């Protein structure tokens, strides 16, 4: 699998440089939202890698190499997790450097934002990748933007009500169990997503 990840790294290196620059810019001008932005961007990195693979028809060749369908699929999840971890670390480092330069303490509220950004990034990967492997990047992107539009639409219409409902359900005492439950749910969703993506991709290539 290291070979697949290295290939993706070489393919994406230009995008990664641009990504680093964006994080730096947002570190200077942005607030806590920068982490969310960086993580969402990072979660899209495997989709970009898949688009390059499709363009080059790499997967036709990869199926002839000592790579199983499982390895081909899982490598894209690993790429996403690495990208999310790198984005979070870079965003924290950038915020820390900015706080040192400005002689102000780091915003403690940032940690909550980081947690939920990581969860959002992993959910994004879990929803996106099975569709990408089944439908191909072009078609799956359309489906993804339709889903995204629906989520944003619901958020805009009922966002306040949802927020109030969640606040009433989660008291500070329940915070830790809630975080653990959310983490477990995201991990379960991710595991299920990998399983489904492997099944869908196998069906696609072996059809």
């Amino acid at each position: 699998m290291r070979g697949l990840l290295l290939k993706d790294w070489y393919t994406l290196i230009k995008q990664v440089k641009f990504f680093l620059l964006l994080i730096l810019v947002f570190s200077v001008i942005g607030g806590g939202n920068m982490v969310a932005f960086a993580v969402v961007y990072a979660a899209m990195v495997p989709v970009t890698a898949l688009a390059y693979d499709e363009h080059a028809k790499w997967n036709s060749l990869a199926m002839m190499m000592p790579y199983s369908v499982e390895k081909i699929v899982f490598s894209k999840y690993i790429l996403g997790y690495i990208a999310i971890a790198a984005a979070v670390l870079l965003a924290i480092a950038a915020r820390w450097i900015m706080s040192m330069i400005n002689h102000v303490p780091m915003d403690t509220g940032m940690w909550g934002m980081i947690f939920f950004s990581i969860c959002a990034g992993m959910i994004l990967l879990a929803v996106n990748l099975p569709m990408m492997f089944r439908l191909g990047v072009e078609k799956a992107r359309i489906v993804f933007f339709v889903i995204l539009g629906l989520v944003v639409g619901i958020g805009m219409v009922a966002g306040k009500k949802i927020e109030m409902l969640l606040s009433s359900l989660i008291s500070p005492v329940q915070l830790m169990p809630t975080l653990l439950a959310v983490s477990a749910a995201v991990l379960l969703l991710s595991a299920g997503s990998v399983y489904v993506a492997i099944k869908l991709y196998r069906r696609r290539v072996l059809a």
Partner: protein
Amino acid sequence: MNAIEVKNVSKHYAGFSLQDVTLCLPRGTVLGLVGENGAGKSTLIKLIMNATGRDGGSIRVLGVDNESMEFDAVKEDIGVVLDEAYYPESLTAAKLNTVMKYTYKNWDEECYRRYLHLLNLPDNKAFKDFSRGMKMKLAISVALSHKAKLLVLDEATSGLDPMIRDEILDVFHDFIREDDHSILLSSHIVSDLEKVCDYIAFLHNGKLQFCEEKDVLLEQYAVIKLSHEDFEAMDEEAIISVKKTEYGVEALVKKSAIPTGFSVEHTTLENIILFFAKGEKNR
């Protein structure tokens, strides 16, 4: 021992079927898979590499069922070149070396560098800037640099100029010198197959017309030209396929079954295949 054994394999797509194909590639030999575009050569190669599912039959490659879990390990011993190189555009030969080092357990960096040098390939030029010939030579260098025992080449020489094709065929000649090395070479350039192959399999409209030793084919069959009257008098058993014109008949015949006195044309593999593909069977 056979490097590849394909038994009664079928694959159905909408509008195309590969039907009941049975062939084998004995170890230490070269099998040429010939057929027109769309005859099913690439489908058969995908089936052999388990890169697509089959609807029936069985395939063993280097002694292993290609649908078994062990086949992923067997792929270490198979060098594959497809009709295009299919590497990401930003890769260079040097970066590809690093990728392949972590792909194949038996990756031989020295060997790869030797092939790059032999085939005049640059180290640090982006793949997207390579000519088609350079791309194919790079793919062949990769296929030959992980101590493969079997080469599977799908139209690897198509679209290349004769100089480069000759260069590449020489590389295949060197590869096959080892006793346990085998090559499956698909092409519609019959002259290339005639140069390197021991066996020829001919696919036509998804059906295997024959799989035979090249020398036996050349020995067994011949093209003859004769008048309509002589043709009518000829034993039906002798005739494989005919092309009729208003001036006479050209027929692919079994040499052993034709009467003495007929002059036999110099017959190439291409003639034989063209008759199988385009000739009529009936009188």
